[in-house]
């Protein structure tokens, strides 16, 4: 495969892989954060 094509395909797939991965991780970390905060609230009350 020619270099420009390699650059293009690896670039665009890299961007989307990162973003998809990030999307999943952010959703998980949000859930974790909200759960942690709820737990803390319960302990305080």
């Amino acid at each position, binding site marked *: 495969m020619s270099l420009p094509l390699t650059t293009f395909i*690896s670039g665009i797939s890299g*961007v989307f892989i990162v*973003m998809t991965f990030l999307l999943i991780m952010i959703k998980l970390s949000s859930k974790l954060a909200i759960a942690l905060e709820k737990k803390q609230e319960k302990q305080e009350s």
Partner: protein
Amino acid sequence: MELLQGMWTSMAFDNLYWGNFVMWTIALTFVYLAIKKGFEPLLLLPIAFGILLVNLPSEIMTPGEGLLWRFYHYGEEWAIIPPLIFLGIGAMTDFGPVIANPKTLLLGAGAQGGVYVTFFGALALGFDINQAAVIGIIGGADGPTTIFLASKLAPEMMGICAVAAYSYMALVPVIQPPVMKLLTTEAQRKIRMKSLRKVSKLEKIFFPIITVIVITLVVPDAAALMGMFCFGNLLRESGVVDRLSLTAQNELMNIVTIFLGISVGATMPAEVFLSPKVLGVFALGSIAFASATATGIGLAHLMNLFLKEKINPLIGAAGVSAVPMAARVAHKVGSEADKKNYLLMHAMGPNVAGVIGTAVAAGMFISVLK
């Protein structure tokens, strides 16, 4: 008489040629645009003065000696300043809209399509592949990333690509709306989006930590930019180091902007700048912005095929990471269709995601081409 002749040669007039005068005119035009029209004055003014200085005969850009060369060498060639600017941007950015609606991350990726459209355009115009990558990244509408990539791949393109990126950023409100209207229907522009949920403090603290881990693992070459970016954001969201956060976004940012601007300007002596290639870069720059807008909107349409709760395709255009101009444009075009449609905060999601997207795209270019 001999005395006068001696004085004349010690003066610098002999070393001027017509190209320098053209560059003076360009520098003064930038000064005018910055002051009178408010075109990104914080950057354009230092850049313009740098252009003026380097086109006066002196040793200010002589390697190993000149003042501006030192700024350039240690700041940009060593790629120190762009990551420091990212530190400031990270400290300024509220990722709330992204965390509340993480799908907008994909829109930030979608707009990077414009980078690759321009990349192939530049190759077709006969630029070599490294130069084409730097020209392409203009489509990300991110000055520091453009300079960072240029320093790694094609230092000779740094000045012109930075100027193209910053000047088109100022023109975002002109370039984007026609493309946006062409690619959306009136009804689509009227789509109202459900208001964003509140994001808790802990979520905001998690965000930069998760982001830096994910991105560095997948694209190690984006580590310098994204590392500083996430660090800045953590300073902001931690809430315990306001002094550091404020310094990163104000004083430090201002200091490095001065060095960045004037030394980027100094990379544009007439011999380098006045070539037909420059016209090519400017033409490609406008294609870059327009096509990034188009691919962002395209991806939004694509996502709407699968989503139950439709997104307004206009916010896809905000994936062009000129923060917050592109988000404002999306909001404005949306409110022209329906004046009670408030897209601004929704558009901030793809907008800040676009910053990440462009840095990742730059990292991918470096990993393949270097």
